[in-house]
């Protein structure tokens, strides 16, 4: 019977595809949160596979903070065309053209544009299932997250009140107004994502690869000057450095690292040899509130 074996990547792929189909079959109004990052790229690609030769039967939604990197916006347009999906963009009207991480700080900006924005969008469209690209290996508190994570009608996550999840029998029953966050990449790790991007040649935003970019050194991190909304502090001089990004978010809140890795192979090589965990570049984690609090609040 040998020969009938799936590699771990192919097993993860099958598991994710199963989840996409299950949700599409059992919910009436699903949506995929699309953050434009590499995990979103994998998620979108898997959704495409799940329904090929048909189209993805649900829309994507990007909760836009208006402060993403320019290259992310153009990549978003490119993907919408490639996969022929409807991408809904939501910008919190209360913070639109006002919220500014340089003026208001990262915590406030993220709260208004991301957390509040997401809640508004969900209320507005009444989505009953929301795909997110979070993985269990990202953070200790996520290690016990379900694939189907139940949210009450205020979008809150109650850690005490999650449903047991056995086999691949997911429980999709909810009352009106409630929803399920679905994490099809739960069992993927950082390295799995990279291996899969490599194997399947999935496009990702070029910011992941090292290139000469204008940056300033600020509070121990390299911040890229992506547009002229960025005020320079005294003593700061923009410089060109060969850098890449490990995660992508709002450009003022995302630290770059110096690197020579121009291909996926080289990124993985660097990653394995440098041994610093991925999320370090994300300034938001340095804030006081823990990820668990953020999640209870509705942030992913």
């Amino acid at each position: 019977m040998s020969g009938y074996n799936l590699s771990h990547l192919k097993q993860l792929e099958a598991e994710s595809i199963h989840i996409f189909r299950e949700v599409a079959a059992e919910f009436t109004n699903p949506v995929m949160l699309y953050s434009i990052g590499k995990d979103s790229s994998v998620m979108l690609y898997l959704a495409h596979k799940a329904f090929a030769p048909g189209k993805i039967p649900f829309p994507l939604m990007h909760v836009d903070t208006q402060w993403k990197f320019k290259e992310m916006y153009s990549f978003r347009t490119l993907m919408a065309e490639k996969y022929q999906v409807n991408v809904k963009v939501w910008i919190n009207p209360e913070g639109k053209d006002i919220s500014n991480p340089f003026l208001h700080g990262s915590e406030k900006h993220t709260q208004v544009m991301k957390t509040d924005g997401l809640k508004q969008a969900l209320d507005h469209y009444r989505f009953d299932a929301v795909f997110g690209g979070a993985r269990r290996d990202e953070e200790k508190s996520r290690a016990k997250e379900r694939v189907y994570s139940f949210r009450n009608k205020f979008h809150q996550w109650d850690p005490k009140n999650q449903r047991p999840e056995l086999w691949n029998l997911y429980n999709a029953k909810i009352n009106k107004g409630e929803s399920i966050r679905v994490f099809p990449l739960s069992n993927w790790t950082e390295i799995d994502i990279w291996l899969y991007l490599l194997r399947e040649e999935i496009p990702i935003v070029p910011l992941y690869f090292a290139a000469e970019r204008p940056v300033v050194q600020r509070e121990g991190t390299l911040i890229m000057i992506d547009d002229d909304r960025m005020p320079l502090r005294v003593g700061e001089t923009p410089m060109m450095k060969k850098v890449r990004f490990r995660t992508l978010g709002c450009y003022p809140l995302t630290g770059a690292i110096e690197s020579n890795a121009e291909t996926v192979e080289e990124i993985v090589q660097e990653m394995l040899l440098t041994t610093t965990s991925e999320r370090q570049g994300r300034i938001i984690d340095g804030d006081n509130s823990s990820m668990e609090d953020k999640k209870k609040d509705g942030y992913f």
Partner: protein
Amino acid sequence: MSDSTYRVQEEELIRGDIAGYLKRHETKDLLRLLTCGSVDDGKSTLIGRLLYDSHMIYEDQLEKVMKDSKVYGTTDESFDPALLTDGLKAEREQGITIDVAYRYFSTDKRKFIIADCPGHEQYTRNMATGASNCNLAVILIDARYGVINQTKRHSFICSLLGIKHVIIAVNKMDLVDWSEKRYEQIKDDYDAFVSRLNFSDIHFIPMSALKGDNVVARSQNLVWYEGPTFLSHLESVNISTDRNLIDMRFPVQYVLRPNLDFRGFSGTLASGVIRVSDAVASLPSRQESKIKAIYGPDGEIAEAFSPMAITVTLEDEIDVSRGNMLVPVKNIPRISNEFESMVVWMHEEKAEVGRSYLIKHATSMVPGVLSSVRYKVDVNTMTRHKQEAVLQDDTANVLELNEIGRCHITLHRSISFDPYERNRATGAFIFVDRLTNVTVGAGMILDRVVSKAKNAGPVSKNIVKNDSLVSDEDRHQLLNQKGATLWLTGLSGSGKSTIALHLERELIDMGHACTILDGDNVRHGLNRDLGFSAEDRTENIRRIAEVAHLFNDAGIIVISAFISPYIKDRQQARQVIADGFIEVFVDTPIEVCEERDPKGLYKKARAGEIPEFTGVTAPYEAPESPELTLAAAETPVEVLVDSVIEKLRKEGVIG
């Protein structure tokens, strides 16, 4: 190899040939395991050690742990591996979540997913959850305390959930002076009780998780142990035979209709292998067609196997939708609206007999009733507690949170399933509460055909036998006979059918109402869902007995002509049919039967083409004291018929 040289070698590979390195990692396989142990057995320490020694800890996390070790560490060592994974402990103190946590690590041979369940009150529920997707369980034993009740409980739950591979990690060997004697004693204690469980492979490893002995690196202190280290065993244990690749089962998840020319059925292959042009039936409708094409994640393919996620198209336009199951025409699972199962209850609100739940099984969600709790299992002692009353006393019929019981489930409509033991994916189900929508229980279908005769009794409290206005005597007067069943039993080719046919003719000619039940009229209708396994044969006989009983009640004489090879089945038929049961042994030697071989069956059986053929590859248990024995080999059929008629007269069935 020590863990540090292991890491150096890895680093060289990564630096020197990254493409080759990635290629190897891309093709490795996946092992899902579960760790169980009582609080403080060293579970977190062991997992932390694995993560640390296998690259999965990044430096910034490690720095934090080193810092934490000084503050919270429970050890004198420079760093406490437990802190790497102990998100849960901190939360427990804050009263947050007590649950299953998943950890990931990998080596160049395998990727591992660890389901880590903290040990205490919620144990049964958490363990069942964690174990449901695992191939292997690691059961920790503190060498100082040896095999305790918890060890047995964990082992039982793992076995119940179908785990086949077990590692018994005898931990904290440093605290018992690395004593081989102590280790051997623990091993013997464990072996003594585990024989009752269903594991196919048990491996014992003495270790010290804290000091790293035999976890990744071979111990200098346990030189008497010659087996593999924990990690190398994890890397090499063979799990490829755990899957069922024999019974193709394809639960349809989603119907894909991108355009008018394409109608595909998407789903995950629960088991088996599917190929283009295979003849399949859609259950429960039983409409048949052939596989036209198969689409895997990378495009069109000629065959697919479990657990691939695929889409298939069919040659014919038959009715298939979500919740249906495609199976081979020649290998059909059980189709029924009721089954026996082991149930783990997972919610504070107890399970009550008579209550209705939503049952999710494969891709269907069907309302169903918990119709009885036959017994509960005491997980500490692994003994059964019989439920005294079934249905009479509702209060006795509950399952509380974390209890395990053998339950009978009755659904509003039929589903297609296999026993869990044979097929995890088509034998598992969950209970969803109809009001709160919460998952409240999990079940595993047993390899028992529901037998109503000795079973719990009627499913609904509203079914009682009606008092008839017609007495047996009334019928007797009308038909001038009593109902009875002549139960002919004997080998294939022994002459049962010939005798039955002549007997029927004779009785009708004499003016008596009678009928034949045989394979031809039963297997094609009433029992067409049954095969020839011992269980199915038993159920076949049970149903026939029930039908014969109904005929007898109506005053009709039944001639049943089935091999019915098992004594216990005929005994059961005797119980069901009661007074009118007349066992007739058609006693023809097998040599004669085989020589006659009217349907060429013996020949095929000898050639191995028919599995489980009575007399050849399956036993025939001759009756010990039948009402009548017919030496059919040397007696003409008319004489045999006469002796049966004579018997009927003697029994007062006919005048």
